[in-house]
């Protein structure tokens, strides 16, 4: 892939105003699919979670999943949307083998929810209100594997294989209105917006909400408007952005790429672009053309959805607290400073820390591990921290430290093991033999050995130079590969010196 020319970010912002728009797809965690009673289940052997409806076999008819309707309404309400008095499904016609029917059942002119807004808070404390145009229901498509060709991509492939397990999984697509005024914060806003949506769906409990598994997928639209022109630019739509980190990077990249083209008098092609996590670039996909003429028409196999005031009010009453209120409550409950809390929000780790605390960890310990070692490893690997470990494992790890079974240093090794897939913290402790040695016998033996090598230490301590003990403690820790309880070693050394 040829490297696109990029303009310096600040320079790009001087010349152009970025205009954003997002389409976020949320996979609902219902037991069954949107229109069939096949299991809605991630993974599994290919083509096992399907019914004739999911394959669009002749004579099969879709029937709407009631829970998916309830979840969609709840999500719409949480996004501050109006819920349509009557809403309808539509066929979106296209030829692509990810669905066997040659159409996707979606919603077009009568979405279930419309006109809402979400307040998104940035690191600076700036709050941007993102207007929601609509949230509509649709079915997910199957998964393609492209065979032949060098890259596993569709280009150059000889043929493709289709697994329809995901076909028909309920989705809600949340579409924003055009977002102007984000300015320099555009990339951060993109990330914070998706993170806020994720927080909302986690608190509603309507999705597994794992970006790396595609439970939340973001298509990011961006265009640049030359300053003072009052004209909108041509937009691109970047797909395949599957982590919070990528959302931010992809927007920044597109701003720099588009600015470089426009500054040279070039034009932006309205097209789909694909984000490549490994190279940190986008590449051209399909240009928008008449292939995007989907010939929507009302789905004749399904009847309108008319939720009724009673259901809407029942679901409204059951809504979890709004994100802003929740944040205020958590910040107080955890006694975090403004800076500490904001860092957590920016890192998109609010949910992880909340769940770790719910598992019994102290808030500060949870913050320390998520924002420290776990975030560091995530950063090193270029992934989201939430993909590395579960809150349950982090909480267990902290419990082992709190009970004195692990030192921080050992805990880092245990964490490595957990991330490497060696099991729970306890399992890693057992398998790697990483327990802190607080057995005095073993410690004293190691101390004797260290003292033999540095015979003058005890003398120095007796002369009042207590810090000399450090050399022995260091030697013992080294000899025991960090498994020694340093505080106990220190006590024992001082005891030996008669202190």
């Amino acid at each position, binding site marked *: 892939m040829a490297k696109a020319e990029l303009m310096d970010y600040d320079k790009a912002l001087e010349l152009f105003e970025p205009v954003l728009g997002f389409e976020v797809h949320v996979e609902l965690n219902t037991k*069954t699919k949107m229109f069939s009673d*096949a299991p809605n289940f991630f993974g599994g052997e290919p083509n096992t979670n399907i019914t004739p409806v999911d394959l669009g*076999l002749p004579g099969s008819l879709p029937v*709407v999943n009631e829970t998916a309707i309830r979840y969609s309404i709840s999500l719409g309400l949480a996004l501050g949307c109006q819920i349509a008095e*009557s809403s309808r499904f539509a066929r979106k016609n296209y030829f692509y083998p990810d669905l066997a029917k040659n159409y996707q059942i979606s919603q077009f002119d009568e979405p279930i929810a419309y006109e809402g807004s979400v307040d998104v808070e940035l690191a600076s404390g700036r709050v941007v209100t993102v207007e929601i145009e609509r949230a509509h229901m649709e079915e997910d498509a199957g998964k393609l594997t492209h065979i032949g060709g060098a890259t596993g991509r569709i*280009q150059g492939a000889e*043929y493709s294989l289709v697994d329809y397990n995901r076909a028909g999984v309920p989705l809600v697509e949340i579409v924003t209105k055009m977002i102007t005024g984000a300015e320099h914060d555009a990339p951060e806003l993109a990330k914070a917006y998706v993170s806020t949506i994720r927080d909302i769906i986690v608190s509603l409990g309507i999705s597994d909400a794992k970006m790396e598994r595609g439970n939340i997928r973001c298509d990011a639209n961006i265009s640049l408007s030359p300053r003072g022109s009052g004209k909108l630019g041509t937009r691109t739509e970047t797909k395949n952005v599957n982590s919070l980190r990528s959302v931010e990077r992809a927007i920044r990249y597109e701003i720099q790429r588009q600015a470089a083209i426009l500054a040279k008098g070039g034009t932006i092609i309205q097209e789909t672009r694909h984000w490549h996590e490994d190279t940190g670039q986008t590449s051209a996909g399909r240009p928008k053309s008449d292939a995007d003429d989907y010939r929507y028409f009302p789905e004749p196999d399904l009847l309108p959805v008319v939720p009724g005031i009673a259901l809407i009010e029942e679901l409204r009453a059951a809504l979890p607290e709004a994100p802003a209120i929740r944040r205020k409550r958590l910040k107080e409950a955890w006694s975090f400073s403004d800076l500490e809390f904001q860092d957590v929000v920016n890192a998109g780790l609010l949910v992880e820390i909340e769940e770790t605390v719910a598992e019994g960890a102290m808030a500060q310990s949870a913050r320390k591990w998520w924002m420290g070692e776990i975030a560091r490893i995530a950063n090193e690997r270029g992934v989201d921290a939430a993909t590395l470990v579960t809150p349950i494992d982090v909480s267990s790890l902290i419990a082992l430290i709190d009970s004195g079974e692990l030192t921080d240093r050992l805990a880092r090794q245990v964490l490595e093991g957990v991330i490497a897939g060696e099991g729970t913290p306890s399992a890693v402790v057992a398998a790697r033999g990483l327990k802190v040695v607080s057995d005095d016998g073993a410690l004293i033996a190691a101390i004797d050995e260290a003292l033999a090598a540095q015979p003058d230490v005890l003398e120095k301590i007796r002369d009042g130079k207590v810090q000399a003990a450090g050399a022995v403690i260091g030697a013992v820790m080294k000899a025991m590969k960090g498994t020694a309880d340093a505080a106990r070693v220190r006590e024992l050394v001082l005891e030996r010196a008669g202190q």
Partner: protein
Amino acid sequence: MSITRDEVAHLARLSRLALGDEELDHFAAQLDGIISAVARVQEVAAGDIPATSHALPLTNVFRPDEVRSGLTAEEALSGAPATERDRFRVPRILEEEA
């Protein structure tokens, strides 16, 4: 209400139908006739009658969210012209790059 030859050509392309010039002339004229006939409904459908997508006065036909047994992979793939590794095998999707 009418449909033009260009629109028919566009629809044919969207539907992956390769229609020749003569066929386009033929179908465009026929479709135009059909649409004109159906369009007569607009004469009686005044502004106060909402558009309808369904003849039945029903709404909210739902299904409880309960799993029932579906197809095995073998059953699912039994009608497929080609399969590989328990997946449907489909021809190349994109034409060779120019």
